[in-house]
């Protein structure tokens, strides 16, 4: 890349900070975001997530700060204390844009501060501020206290107390969620990072850029999922509630059923009517899928409403919104929190009531009472209770609100995801359910191994750019390669980006393998192979055929160049990578 890019390296143990130039060649092979973060972990990827030397990387991408649609996102990369896998998560808001405007493509934080601190970054420089008075405060109060310092990424009590699914929360309400990176910051005694910058990002070829941007916007307008009158721009991701109900794949009562009769209580139209939902978006994003209540608080996403709803058999919208508020303020992942409560509910024979949930969430974040066990996530809860089968997770990461019995690509994608049971890696929901860019047969494994592999590579590139997955319900990597070419002044092709994505994906898998992950970890909970979903209305939802699933997984490994047991054919993979 033509632009000189910089990384800030912060050693919290010594308090030393330095800005370094990132080599252009390095960026050419990893782009930024997830790819750059994963590369920077090399050599320390086998450290324990809570080892002070384990880095946490905040990295934006080369399109951030330009008017490229949906590209002002940040990836945070480290090793997850929940899953033990390499871990990255992308978040929107304003933080990424302000970080880039402060002259940085990335921040790498290592070490452990003796006392709580805040890292404050501006274009002029960076400093570590004492933060003992912020410790134990909720995310809301923390963000308010730091609001004159630009954008804030903060942890709440959950992160401070080492909850294994604690999030890093962006001040605007977006979360670096799922894998517990909040606890990694908590262990480092880093309460928050603030960024404020004023630099404008150059675009090498403005005319080419404008053309590519217009192409992207045209595709957004042609996509019913994005700008359709029932799409995510109008209703946010809860637009999926009705669809998942209709497709009979909404996880209900800890995945014992796949239809929840009360789902209408938290559908997109119901939320809009109840809370006067207004559109909001990440910086520079035309889609604006985020929704806020008329009183300004962020409204929950699809996975959150579904898991605090159907998964726990709760049809009370206000309870669900309160759960979302609590998780946001405590700094805790909503999917894992709800799924852990649900697994615990199944194990004890009773799901928590709406009245109980608030207290339980606070107990988890503060690790007291039942919360001590629940703060470890569903796998450890289930094992401790002697019922490992009730944890609906892959590699200890709880499955989100897409039942794998209703979409076989999703079933495969859950197990091949390097960060565990996540819907956002291959994201086959896009074609299996939303018909974008084309439809595929959701009840068939045919061709799915190859589709998943290609999508994982593509999305690893997207996460390295760092663009939003939702953009790809309309546009494709073709238009984003063009945006990148226009910004950098160098030619990038979709094929080249997919190759970068493949390198990133395989690097992650290699790290995981070195940490002991094998084919045995690439598996779904047994329930999906033995129990049917909720058939009806002309849709049959049988258990997944285990033999066929295994066959497709083997195909997947072969396509990836791995052995049939999912291992690497040799140990020299990393040395061959730039």
């Amino acid at each position: 890349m033509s632009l000189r890019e910089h990384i800030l390296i912060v050693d919290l143990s010594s308090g030393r900070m330095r800005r370094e130039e990132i080599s252009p060649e390095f960026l050419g092979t990893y782009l930024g975001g997830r790819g750059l973060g994963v590369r920077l972990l090399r050599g320390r990827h086998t450290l324990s997530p809570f080892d002070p030397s384990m880095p946490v990387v905040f990295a934006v991408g080369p399109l951030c700060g330009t008017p490229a649609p949906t590209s002002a996102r940040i990836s945070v990369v480290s090793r997850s204390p929940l899953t033990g896998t390499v871990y990255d998560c992308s978040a929107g808001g304003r933080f990424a844009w302000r970080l880039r405007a402060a002259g940085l493509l990335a921040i790498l934080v290592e070490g452990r501060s003796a006392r709580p601190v805040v890292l404050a970054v501006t274009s002029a420089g960076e400093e570590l501020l004492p933060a003992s008075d912020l410790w134990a405060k909720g995310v809301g109060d923390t963000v308010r206290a730091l609001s004159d310092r630009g954008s804030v990424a903060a942890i709440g009590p959950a992160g401070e107390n080492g909850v294994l699914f604690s999030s890093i929360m962006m001040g605007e309400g977006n979360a670096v969620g799922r894998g517990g990176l909040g606890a990694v910051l908590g262990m480092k005694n880093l309460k928050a990072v603030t960024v404020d910058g004023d630099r404008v990002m150059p675009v090498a070829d403005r005319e080419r850029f404008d053309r590519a941007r217009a192409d992207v916007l045209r595709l957004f307008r042609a996509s019913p999922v994005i700008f359709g009158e029932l799409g995510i721009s109008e209703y946010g991701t809860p637009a999926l509630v009705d669809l998942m109900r209709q497709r009979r794949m909404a996880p209900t009562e800890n995945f014992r059923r796949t239809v929840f009769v009360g789902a209408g209580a938290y559908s997109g139209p119901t939320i809009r009517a109840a809370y006067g939902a207004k559109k909001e978006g990440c910086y520079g994003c035309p889609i604006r899928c985020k929704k806020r209540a008329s009183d300004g608080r962020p409204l929950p996403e699809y996975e959150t409403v579904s898991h605090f709803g159907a998964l726990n058999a709760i049809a009370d919208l206000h309870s669900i919104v309160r759960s979302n508020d609590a998780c946001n303020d405590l700094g805790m992942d909503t999917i894992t929190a709800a799924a852990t409560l649900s697994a615990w509910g199944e194990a004890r024979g009773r799901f928590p009531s709406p009245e109980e949930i608030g207290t339980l969430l606070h107990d988890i974040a503060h690790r007291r009472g039942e919360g001590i066990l629940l703060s470890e996530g569903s796998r450890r809860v289930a094992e401790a209770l002697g019922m490992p089968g009730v944890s609906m997770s892959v590699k200890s990461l709880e499955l989100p609100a897409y039942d794998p019995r209703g979409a076989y690509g999703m079933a495969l994608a859950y197990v091949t995801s390097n960060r565990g049971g996540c819907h956002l890696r291959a994201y086959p929901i896009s074609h299996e359910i939303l018909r974008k860019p084309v439809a595929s047969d959701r009840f068939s494994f045919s061709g799915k191994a190859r589709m998943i592999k290609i999508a994982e590579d593509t999305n690893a590139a997207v996460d390295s750019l760092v663009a939003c997955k939702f953009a790809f319900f309309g546009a494709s990597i073709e238009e984003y390669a063009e945006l990148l070419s226009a910004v950098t002044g160098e030619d990038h092709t979709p094929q080249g980006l997919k190759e970068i994505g493949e390198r990133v994906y395989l690097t992650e898998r290699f790290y995981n393998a070195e940490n002991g992950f094998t084919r045995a970890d690439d598996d779904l909970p047994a329930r999906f192979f033995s129990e049917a979903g909720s058939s009806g209305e002309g849709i049959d939802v049988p258990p997944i055929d285990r033999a066929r699933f295994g066959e497709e997984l083997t195909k997947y490994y072969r396509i990836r160049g791995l052995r049939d047991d999912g291992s690497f054919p040799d140990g020299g993979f990393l040395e061959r990578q730039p």
Partner: protein
Amino acid sequence: MRSLIAKFAGKLHRDRSAVQGRVGIAVQDDVMISEGAPDLSRLTVDVLSRLSCLGVVAASPSLPFAEFLLRRANADAEAIVPLDTETRTFLHDIPIVRRAELAGDPAAAIAALLSNRKGVIAEGVGIVASGPVTLEQAYIHYSSVFHACYVKYLLDVLQDGFLLPGEEDAFRDFRKTSLRPLTSEELFFSASHLDDPEEVLAEIRTVGRYTVQRGLVDSFFGNISYRVGETIFISQTAASLDELAGCIDPVPMDNRSTTGITASSELLAHRRIYEATGARAILHGHPKFAVVMSMLCEEKGCPVKDCWKDCPNVRMLGDTPVVAGEIGAGGLAVRVPPVIGAPGKAIVYGHGVFTIGRDGFEEAFRSMVDVESRCREEYFRRLDARAGRQSKSE
């Protein structure tokens, strides 16, 4: 996989977009599978092995228009740029690769271009298209390139006449033998108002099939809906009109539910048309001559640049209004409903035709046949007039 290859090879023949026996298709699962004409099938394997992609289709188009466009393009042109809406939105432009560039390693040259675009025109080979997610996608991309070339070539010929040796003869042959008479005769439509959802779904499936069978539209270019009370039954986004079983969404008029998030991107246009006209059925497709004729505007000195989306005028093609408007959330839903009521039909600039049925699909289908037939006649009238002018001036 082999059954998929057979399915799409069959579709390319049935929709008459590829020469019989001149199709090659490759798909890669854990192994590569290919079928078809040996040279094309080999080419698709070689191209696909260089791409991160699920399938590739290569075929000789049934009409030589793509080849002519390539040869008519400037010697230094790297792509042709059709201006119909489909191309603007989904293809952007269509790369061309000339015989000389194919001399060394044709698969490498084609793959390099396909790594950037959905379909390419290769001189002497035909159209080669890729499907990153499914094989159907490669078929759709092939059809999109075929459609775009058809429309652009017809426009160019009307504008510039025949420029290459053999072109005029080929065109005469196309006119005489390739164009099927358009008719709705011998088709059966449900006469009465339908209320039973099962009957509605069956009727939509049948009419969707008719549109493709009669050569009005290509398989996936269009959408179709029927209103029963407060529910619109509408085909899903990216659904093929001749394969609508399981691909029709019931959508409430008042947006009470978001199930229709997978409905056609024209849902809003359909809803507004129902509100404005009280119709029961809507048919939308992209018949080629209507698309061509909609792009011929004779306004002089007009300041509008992006006619396809910004033109504020209502033009008339015979008794059919023509308006501008972009797909989806783009203004088509604003401009079509006010003009479609009285004539029962409307054309969108560079895009296609909407027709309505006040009772059912018969009226809508007849209207679409009528619009396309008239556009075809008018096109050839203008072409003949042009030829007349040309021969007089010679």
